[in-house]
């Protein structure tokens, strides 16, 4: 228990987390500090490219094996099933409409790549590593949850046809294409490729992440300021319970697959995290009737900071305990 608290404290006092806190504080205090939209988008392109590339290079180094394939399939199933769990939990805890609940559920089945990266950092500071293909697992988990949510709704409406081209538009979302594409580039060019651009995608990575989290803090704080009143106590309870539930589902899958401690912790983190880039965009297209303020505030304003600060050390502690790592 002491170990968890020490790790949690160390995690909290890192430039990355404090940058997020600075952003939230500035937004709540109504400072006019903002990161231009183009700069925020550029930062996210950099992060996705770097994360994908490094993941691909790691797979190139380790080769493809059965466990890799198993983990990808597990990720796919987790992403597809977690929305049903989330939906049921929302029905119990909140009185959101069916549409809003389905939209929120899609976010929690999908993943947050920055939470994933923060998880990697926590692992590193604990001296652990994970399977290289976890990035590929993250990519696989982006989209299935969206389909599940749409199915939840269409079942409710008795109309189970999807607009033509919609599924394609969801899968070809820029952030998914960039993550998968750079993963492939990393896998194809391997260590040589990584060496040639390491001083761009490895060395300055944590620093860039600080600025990105500053921006996310600003956006999250602004969302909390303007939309917190839309969330009842039940929704907030959901926002911190669902990650824990998700992480346990991830743990179960990791144990079945026999992942390392680090791998288990990252699969838990992915399952626990909620999307705030790809899924919100997909929801505006596929479920425009759902209220964006609800799912954005819940995902970015509640679950993201919860995972970043409290969740990650807990997931690591549980993963260590369960895998004996």
């Amino acid at each position, binding site marked *: 228990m002491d170990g968890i608290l020490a790790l949690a404290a160390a995690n909290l006092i890192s430039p990355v987390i404090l940058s997020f806190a600075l952003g939230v504080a500035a937004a709540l205090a109504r400072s006019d500090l*903002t*990161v*231009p*939209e183009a700069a*925020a*988008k550029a*930062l*996210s392109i950099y992060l996705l490219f770097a994360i994908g590339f490094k993941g691909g290079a790691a797979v190139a180094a380790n080769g493809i094996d059965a466990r890799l394939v198993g983990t990808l399939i597990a990720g796919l199933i987790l992403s597809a099933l977690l929305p049903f769990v989330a939906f049921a939990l929302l029905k119990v805890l909140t009185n959101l409409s069916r549409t809003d609940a389905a939209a929120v559920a899609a976010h929690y089945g999908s993943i947050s790549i920055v939470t994933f990266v923060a998880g990697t950092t926590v692992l590193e500071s604990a001296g652990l590593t994970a399977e290289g293909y976890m990035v590929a697992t993250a990519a696989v988990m982006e989209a299935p949850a969206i389909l599940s949510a749409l199915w939840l709704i269409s079942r409710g409406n008795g109309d189970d046809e999807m607009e033509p081209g919609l599924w394609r*538009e969801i899968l070809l979302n*820029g952030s998914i294409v960039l993550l998968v594409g750079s993963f492939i580039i990393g896998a194809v060019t391997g260590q040589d490729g990584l060496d040639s651009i390491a001083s761009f995608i490895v060395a300055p990575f944590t620093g860039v992440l600080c600025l990105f989290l500053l*921006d*996310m803090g*600003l*956006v999250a704080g*602004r969302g909390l300021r*303007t*939309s917190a009143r839309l969330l009842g106590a039940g929704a907030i309870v959901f926002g911190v319970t669902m990650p824990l539930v998700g992480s346990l589902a991830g743990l179960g899958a990791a144990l079945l697959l026999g992942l390392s401690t680090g791998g288990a912790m990252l699969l838990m983190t992915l399952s626990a995290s909620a999307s*705030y*880039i*790809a899924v*919100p*965009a997909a*929801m*505006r*297209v596929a479920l*425009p*009737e759902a*209220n*964006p*303020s609800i799912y*954005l505030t819940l995902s970015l304003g509640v679950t993201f900071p919860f995972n970043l600060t409290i969740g990650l050390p807990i997931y690591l502690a549980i993963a260590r305990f369960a895998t004996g790592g």
Partner: protein
Amino acid sequence: MQTHPAKRVEIIIEAPAQRRLVRAMNDAGIDAYTILPVLGGSGRSGRWSRDGQVSTASGMISVTCILRSDRLDGLLNAALEVVERHIGVVSVTDCEVLRAERF
């Protein structure tokens, strides 16, 4: 200078609906328009701003379309169909254009 009466339609709509709107406009035979960026705004669903947004989910655009009056109803029907499901506002202004043959 010789000018000709026309209609100027401005559709302020959430950015993720852009493809859908353009498709609906094309189906109505309208394929000349201009898209302006929007920084922020306020409405029944509260205030929002584009600052720092990474996702394309939050954000609006303004689609301006200048056309002959006889094509107005086609455009409005197309726009309404999309705006009914999405966040958005449609307004129509009378205007005069040079070189009527273009519209």
